[in-house]
């Protein structure tokens, strides 16, 4: 079974500062994908960043970057120059080919990030 663990239920950061959210996962799969999703109070899950496990280079999207350590099964998210609009729940998610054509996502329990003015 695949599991995703987010050990920080809540975090806060000052506006314009940098924050890192932690995520570890457990799997016996070799080919898989990792994601960070953001869920603001509107409830809509928004894709922040995606990493393919076979790629060694860490993914980046503007102020968002990841530190992917495949051997350690770690996938942390760094948010630089934090903005008030970054306040949200952040979910780490894992996806693999589970058979029958499905790439279902397995999610961690989330980290609630508050950006303080």
């Amino acid at each position, binding site marked *: 079974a695949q599991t*995703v663990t987010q050990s920080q239920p809540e975090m806060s950061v000052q506006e314009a500062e940098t924050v890192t959210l932690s995520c570890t996962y457990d799997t016996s799969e070799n080919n898989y*994908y990792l994601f960070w*999703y953001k869920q603001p109070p*509107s*409830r*809509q*899950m*928004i*894709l922040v960043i*995606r990493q393919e496990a076979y790629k060694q280079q860490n993914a980046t999207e503007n102020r968002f970057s990841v530190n992917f350590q495949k051997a350690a099964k770690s996938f942390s998210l760094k948010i630089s120059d934090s903005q008030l609009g970054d306040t949200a729940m952040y*979910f780490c*998610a894992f*996806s693999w080919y*589970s*058979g*029958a*054509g*499905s*790439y*279902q*996502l*397995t*999610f*961690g*329990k*989330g980290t609630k990030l508050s950006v303080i003015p």
Partner: protein
Amino acid sequence: GAGVSQSPSNKVTEKGKDVELRCDPISGHTALYWYRQSLGQGLEFLIYFQGNSAPDKSGLPSDRFSAERTGGSVSTLTIQRTQQEDSAVYLCASSIRVAQNIQYFGAGTRLSVL
């Protein structure tokens, strides 16, 4: 449409009633997923559609839950004889094809069973 649309946004029902939740995926997206987000929990997978067929129903928690998809587009999740533990946010996601593996989510339906 521009994004994944779910209706209703909120649904309050009485224990024992049946409910239907609707998902309208992004136009052209062949893969469709339903997830459930319970209070204080992450999301759990319910069912996956490729076109109109549901090859993966492994996440449905009981036989009170069923889903269908017609015309390769709109999907309906039905919960029969609702129980209080069914109270949750039900999220739908679609992707243009399975191999691309980026799922786009709707805003969900918040179901409250009294």
